[in-house]
């Protein structure tokens, strides 16, 4: 008997008892569906966690350079380098931080003054509550413009500050051009305890003409490694000494997050996999019942000339088909459920192609594996005994 015939027989047998076939498949549908859903959701959660960390700067690379008399990194060259590698690098800003005494009339405080480039705001995903940020023109002209944090606004102006007011940094008058939206909790030493000024002014304030620190943003957290590599090559080319520059990022943290979440997703997938096993046992159970029920049929087939492998393939193919159809329905079910739950939780969850292939492969294997035993039982039936059964 040909395989195509065995398929036809199996399909007919499945259609012959639709309710039972569906209930048998249900185990498979739930098993495959839950594997796909859990793995997909876990993937979504991982992406969510990583994007949350990305807000904190997982795509950020800090570069510190010890400029010497003969070898130094020029700001414009650094900008040009980042622009050349815009495939993986998003932007760069010099970052010159020092603590200074800041005064408004007789009120004074000490805070961190950071000299920045015009892209600092977007690189760090910061927002302003009013005014504007430091501009390229400010930097070029060393215009004394500053953007203050909410803590500084409270301490120096008791919160009543407007654009155009002035303050003194280290004795020099600066115009407030913008106010940063509250980032932390408006306390001392929080992210709101800060003032931003053009990096050119900051360099002058600190008395050194060269910029020693930069923050570079990679396009994506995944690009950080590659970005570090090209930066390393670039800086070594200029400095000729590894000790004169230092590159750091959060890749290690990222890797930890990745390994943790992938472990979690394996555990959850494994738990869901147990339901696949249960589904397989369900299929085996039904096939065993089916063999007993159809003993007479098997007897007739054998009397008429069916060989062992004919009976065997009939039952194995039936079990495999049940589990493959169940697996396919499970994939659809899992796909929809992942989408629905992902939307409900506000996670961008998509079922992974890997988990779909894996779930389908496992369901087919389970069908064949668990169908084998009942099929073997059927194939071994003695035709005389089988014919005599009712």
């Amino acid at each position: 008997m040909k395989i195509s015939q065995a398929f036809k027989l199996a399909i007919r047998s499945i259609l012959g008892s639709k309710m039972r076939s569906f209930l048998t498949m249900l185990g498979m549908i739930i098993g495959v569906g839950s594997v796909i859903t859990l793995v997909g959701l876990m993937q979504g959660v991982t992406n969510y966690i990583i994007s949350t960390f990305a807000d904190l700067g997982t795509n950020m690379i800090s570069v510190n350079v010890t400029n010497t008399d003969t070898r130094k990194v020029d700001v414009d060259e650094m900008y040009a380098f980042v622009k050349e590698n815009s495939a993986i690098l998003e932007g760069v800003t010099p970052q010159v931080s020092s603590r200074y005494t800041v005064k408004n009339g007789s009120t004074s405080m000490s805070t961190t003054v950071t000299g920045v480039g015009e892209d600092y705001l977007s690189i760090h995903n910061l927002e302003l509550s009013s005014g504007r940020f430091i501009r390229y023109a400010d930097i070029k002209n060393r215009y004394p413009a500053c953007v203050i944090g909410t803590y500084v606004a409270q301490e120096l102006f008791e919160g009543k500050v407007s654009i155009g007011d002035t303050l003194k940094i280290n004795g020099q008058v600066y115009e407030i051009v913008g106010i940063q939206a509250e980032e932390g909790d408006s306390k001392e030493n929080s992210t709101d305890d800060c003032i931003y000024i053009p990096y050119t002014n900051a360099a002058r304030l600190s008395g050194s003409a060269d910029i020693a620190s930069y923050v570079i943003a990679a396009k994506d957290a995944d690009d950080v490694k590659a970005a570090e590599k090209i930066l390393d090559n670039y800086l070594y080319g200029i400095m000729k000494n590894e000790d004169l520059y230092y590159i750091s990022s959060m890749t290690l943290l990222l890797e930890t997050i990745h390994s943790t979440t992938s472990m979690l997703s394996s555990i959850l997938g494994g738990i869901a996999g147990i339901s696949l096993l249960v589904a397989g046992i369900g299929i085996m159970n039904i096939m065993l019942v089916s063999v007993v029920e159809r003993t007479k049929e098997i007897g007739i087939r054998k009397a008429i000339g069916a060989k062992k492998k004919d009976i065997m393939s009939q039952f194995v193919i039936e079990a495999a088909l049940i589990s493959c159809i169940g697996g396919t329905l499970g994939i659809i079910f899992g796909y929809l459920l992942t989408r629905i739950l992902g939307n409900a939780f506000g996670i961008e969850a998509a079922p992974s192609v890997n988990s779909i292939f894996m779930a389908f492969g496992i369901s087919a294997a389970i069908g064949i594996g668990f169908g084998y035993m009942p099929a073997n039982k059927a194939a071994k039936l003695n035709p005389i005994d089988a014919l005599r059964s009712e």
Partner: protein
Amino acid sequence: MNTRRTDTMADNREVPLIQLIDIQKIYQMGDTEVRANDGINLSIREGEFVAIVGKSGSGKSTIMNIIGALDTPTAGQYILKEQDVSKMKGDALAEVRNHLIGFIFQQYNLLSKQNLIENVELPLLYAGMGKKQRRSLAMEALRKVGLEDKWKNYPNQLSGGQQQRGAVARALAGNPSLILADEPTGALDSKTSGELLDFLQQLNANGNTIVLITHDRNVAERARRVVGLQDGKIIFDESVEEYRKQVLV
């Protein structure tokens, strides 16, 4: 020892279609040995119509299973169409059943989830025949039994007599050397029984070899040769004319 008598209608070929030589079938029932067949010698030539009769427990079912290649004897030799079947196993026996034997059972034994023509095609399917050829041979077999217009029907849409004729068509489809009928009229009323037996006689007249197992004297009298069994032994092997005169068997 040779109880076979030469039938006037049988052809004169030297080698008979069926040769049973000292067949023994012993079942172990707990501590006791049951000799279901105890030294059966029987030859059947091509074209014969033989009825094997006996009461229940006479061993006629056992000998039917052996002749039908459903079972093998404990000892002795069974030669069917020059093949020694007695030592065969599983798939080899299945092949013998498929190619050489057409079964007609008491309970028709059509598969209820397949329609008539698919049932008739079944032996051809297991013989590995292609669909077109299967269809045409099955249709021809249905035509022989007069059911060609019912080919689409499922067994439960047919009367008992029609189902049994369907089963005969299935037995004929593969053009087997031997038609083996086990109480073929057991589930039929007397009118349809008579019709079926007429049909079997007609098949025999056309040259088919038929072995019929029955406990019913009226059925056995439709054959041309009757073999009587008792306690696993042959006690009678004569023409049907002789059988009619016998009261004991």
